[in-house]
């Protein structure tokens, strides 16, 4: 197999850089490959290439070099650089962000628990205590403190469960103070989310799918 292969596919042109090849050699071959093509005049449409690197993860410097090769020719450009592998750091970040954290302990006044990802809260959150995460929070335990989902700016996060006794509901940058007046509207089996007016609304759990799809429609 040669160092660089050009293929056409449904998604357009794909350049495969053999992951067993020497990078510098492959880069040279890539240049030759581009030269060999019959690149049209400046009036023609720009042709986009996807570059696949197989089981090799290009370093930032290598990506720069590949991109530089392409910028020399205005008629071609890189659509994406895709690798079959991810760095350990990237993966652990991803795992963390998608993790469901289960918390069972007592969070006392003055304590602040911070998570990444979603939180299933089975413990007790005392007055003056706080739990905070960048994802959503599912409450099954007793909550008297401040619940912060989507910290600092994830507006699609939500808070599920019995919100009635919480002191404050916070999603992203929006804060809802639970007072005697609005506590009556909060029950179990509900969820709080950021509506299209960018304020916190509360709805029944069975409406979650509908509400979320509507609010996405509104923003995208």
């Amino acid at each position: 197999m040669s160092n660089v292969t050009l293929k056409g596919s449904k998604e357009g042109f794909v350049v495969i850089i053999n992951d067993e090849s020497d990078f510098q050699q492959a880069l040279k071959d890539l240049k030759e490959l581009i030269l060999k093509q019959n690149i049209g005049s400046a009036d023609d449409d720009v042709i986009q290439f996807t570059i696949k690197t197989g089981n090799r993860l290009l370093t930032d410097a290598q990506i720069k070099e590949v991109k530089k090769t392409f910028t020399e020719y205005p008629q071609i450009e890189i659509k994406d650089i895709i690798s079959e592998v991810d760095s350990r750091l990237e993966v652990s970040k991803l795992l963390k962000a998608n993790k469901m954290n289960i918390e069972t302990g007592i969070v006392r006044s003055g304590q602040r628990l911070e998570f990444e990802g979603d939180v299933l809260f089975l413990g007790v959150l005392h007055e003056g205590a706080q739990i905070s995460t960048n994802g959503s929070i599912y409450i099954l335990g007793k909550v008297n403190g401040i619940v912060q989902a989507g910290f600092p700016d994830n507006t699609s996060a939500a808070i599920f469960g019995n919100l009635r006794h919480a002191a404050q509901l916070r999603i992203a940058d929006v804060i809802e103070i639970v007072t005697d007046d609005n506590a009556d509207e909060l029950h179990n089996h509900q969820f709080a989310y950021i509506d299209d007016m960018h304020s916190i609304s509360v709805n029944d759990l069975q409406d979650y799918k509908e509400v979320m799809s509507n609010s996405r429609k509104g923003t995208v």
Partner: protein
Amino acid sequence: MGISIVVTSGKGGVGKTTTTANISSVLASLGKKVCMVDLDIGLRNLDAVLGLTNRIVYDIVDVAQNRVVLSQALVRDPRFEDNLYLLAASQFADKYVLDQDSVRRIITYLKQRFDFVMIDCPAGIEYGFQNAVTVADGAIVVTNPELASVSDADRVVGILESMKMPITPHLIINRVRKNMINEGTSMRIDDIVNHLRIPLLGVVVDEDDVIAASNAGRTVISDNNSDAGHSYRNIAHRMLGENIPLDIFNGDKKTGFFSRVFGRKK
């Protein structure tokens, strides 16, 4: 080797000093060797509650700064033979003269000589509090049946739990007003215990006798008519590992309408 127990609360005025004095006295009367250490530097009053103020010659700051040896600074309470001693706080020095190392050195030494080292902690959760709790093996958290006090106790318990002491913090609910509990206008004992979720060591009623005794430099522990004294005795017995049921009074002791109108008992 004895154990050191800090008596703390977060909020001021809930009865840390009175509790320290009373429990220590009971333990001493039961034949245990007890040393009380007042760490409320600058605002000492454990000595006053016990009526030992006149006997203080040297204090803990003198010991920490090596002006005297520790045994010279210990004040013996003559009512308990050789069982109860006090290491007084300094009334003149600034609280920052005591650092953690010297406090730890003093407490470690005392633990070798005594069965119980009872540390009276200053209110708040600042410098003096940190000094007191880091050297203790266990803690007694004193709270009153009121929201502000329970909330501060919660904060303190959180800090204590994060320190991973060898003995889990225990709770004493102090100054419980019988009449208010019966009328339902005070926080309920169950609610406080359920909220704080630490073992309950005892419940002490609010009694005029306790204040009167403090003012006279006595403790209520030997007074058989005092409910508070009875509670302190029970608490000390529980600390020694005895299984004494909690005497939480329920609604069944409710005072009648007339006795409520015509004055409380005691």
